[in-house]
């Protein structure tokens, strides 16, 4: 039924939908993505100026493609939690948990594909626990997941006695090739990363799940009034991060052909940075998966850029800091710019969405 039928009596002046010109409309609806991409290109430009020749070499990109996909998988999933107005700080330990489950199962002689499945289930379960604690007990996600990060890290230390597990026997198996092999010289995990981004993007912008995440993150009360299952959506989002961390756990284990009891720890800040450099803001209701993918790529290129520019490794954190803060500035400018051409209105309404009762 067309919407107008209910209002048959009302005057209906036929007027076409108002749209800006194609390019401007694209920029308006994808402004975070556009500014993230612009920022990335600018950063590459700076690195290229520092050492032009090296950026024509393929091995640079192959090196990035080995580690970047793990970040991409994480950043993409984290967008859902951040767009809900929550945060997950426990995924590093969930990665290690997935890694431990996978390594233990594989060394115990369990079929590797089953070991992969167990690792994914462990990640999903840990994420589900986060979600239940946050959604049903109403705990702060920041504190809860901070606590769970310690909890899992501690449990893993206790179980593994703080020592690693070599997994060289996995090298060259079907599972190894499926996750970290190469196809035409391209690391397979790149396809996993891109697939995760594609699935995440579809879920976030075209599926009810993503629509509910954004709506609930934007106005929780309105979501509840409109029968959006806010708690279930929260649980699902944290579970999604957990599952993704489990997958990353498997990939890093196979990349290293080793289990290390702190393997996930180093991914906390880069993965979160990918989300924010990609243009997803902290306040909830808004996010961009394509931006997060570009953010993860941006972060991954920093290391390479520093080395190729001839700087020492001591510069790494310094440059990370510059990149993160600068990128936020770029998003801010893009946001302001995108409001100016709006149909005849110069000012953004300062009022909140809900008028005072």
């Amino acid at each position, binding site marked *: 039924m067309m919407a107008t039928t209910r209002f048959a009596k009302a005057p209906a002046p036929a007027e076409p939908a108002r749209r800006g010109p194609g390019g401007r409309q694209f920029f308006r609806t994808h402004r975070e993505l556009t500014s993230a991409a612009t920022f990335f290109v600018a950063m590459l430009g700076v690195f290229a100026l520092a050492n032009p020749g090296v950026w024509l070499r393929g091995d640079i990109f192959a090196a990035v493609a080995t580690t970047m996909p793990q970040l991409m998988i994480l950043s993409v999933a984290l967008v859902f939690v951040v767009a809900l107005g929550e945060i997950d700080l426990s995924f590093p330990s969930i990665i290690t948990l997935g890694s431990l489950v996978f390594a233990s199962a594989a060394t115990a002689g369990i079929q590797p594909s089953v070991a992969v499945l167990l690792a994914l289930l462990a990640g999903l379960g840990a994420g589900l626990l986060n979600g239940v604690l946050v959604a049903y007990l109403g705990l702060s996600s920041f504190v809860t997941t901070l606590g769970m990060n310690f909890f899992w890290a501690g449990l893993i230390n206790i179980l593994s006695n703080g020592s690693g597990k070599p997994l060289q026997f996995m090298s060259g198996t079907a599972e190894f090739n499926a996750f970290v092999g190469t196809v035409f010289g391209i690391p397979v995990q790149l396809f996993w990363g891109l697939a995760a981004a594609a699935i995440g993007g579809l879920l976030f912008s075209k599926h*009810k799940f993503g629509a509910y995440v954004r709506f609930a993150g934007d106005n929780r009360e*309105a979501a509840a009034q409109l*029968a959006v299952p806010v708690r279930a959506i929260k649980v699902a989002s944290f579970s999604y991060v957990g599952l993704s961390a489990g997958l990353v756990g498997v990939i890093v284990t196979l990349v290293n052909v080793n289990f290390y009891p702190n393997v996930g720890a180093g991914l906390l800040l880069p993965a979160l940075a990918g989300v924010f450099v990609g243009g997803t803001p902290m306040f909830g209701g808004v996010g961009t998966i394509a931006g997060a993918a570009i953010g993860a790529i941006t972060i991954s290129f920093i290391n390479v850029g520093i080395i190729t520019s001839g700087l020492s490794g001591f510069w790494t954190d310094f440059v990370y800091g510059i990149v993160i803060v600068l990128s936020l500035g770029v998003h801010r400018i893009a946001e302001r710019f995108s409001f100016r051409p709006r149909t005849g209105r110069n000012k953004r309404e300062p009022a909140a*969405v809900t008028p005072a009762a």
Partner: protein
Amino acid sequence: MVASGNRVLELDGITKSFGGVRAVDGASFHVDGGEVVCLLGDNGAGKSTLVKIITGVHTPDSGQMSINGELIKRWNPARARDAGVQTVFQDRSLAGRQTVARNIFMGRELTTRFGLIDDKRQEAEAEALLRGVGFTSKALSARSEVLNLSGGERQGIAIARAMHFAARLLILDEPTESMSLTQIRLTLGFTRAARDRGIAVLLISHNIADAYAVGDRFLVLDRGRVLETFHKSEISEGELVRFMEHANADSAGTGSRTTSERQTTQESSA
């Protein structure tokens, strides 16, 4: 047209407290299909709390509620929606950073064959809906972010959404607050149109003139309980205004009023 005597909503002794505050205190009333019932009362009388109970946002502490003749056991917003209840809440239930179309279809998305949201169709229908309601302005399109719209435009969206989806019961909590005269006229027109389609309408307004223009019955809520019920034939607009003034003055004072006092009020104003 639905035959009268078709009871859509019935409340019996509904009570709800927040901590020490008894927001609703044994409220009982009913709304039939094809009538507009106005809920009037002072600030804090419990009107919006009743709305949230009827829509499943709040669970009452005690009392019974029937919708479409069925006694409600476990109630929540999804069940209310599925029972044909649509509401314009006092806070309008809009998410500012989502588009107008996404706001209108939230929870009732139009999907493609693959189960994905059909934004094109949603935007086209939302566009048609907004034009149909007549709440048009330059900045308002189905793809606008709600945050950038004026207060009246936002209200128009919430009203269009509720009017469009209401099947059995339409609840309007202060729909005409801060609206232009044109918008008020349109809104009251749609309210009548909904009633004429047989929908039960529960209207809350501090503007007695607006309420009187469309209402068939008027319930005066005072500190969480229904103090009086008037049929339109029993009372003139002026009398209703004066009654409300007295009710408000009284509830700021001491105890509850009696029926004889009500008659005094009516007589003195006649």
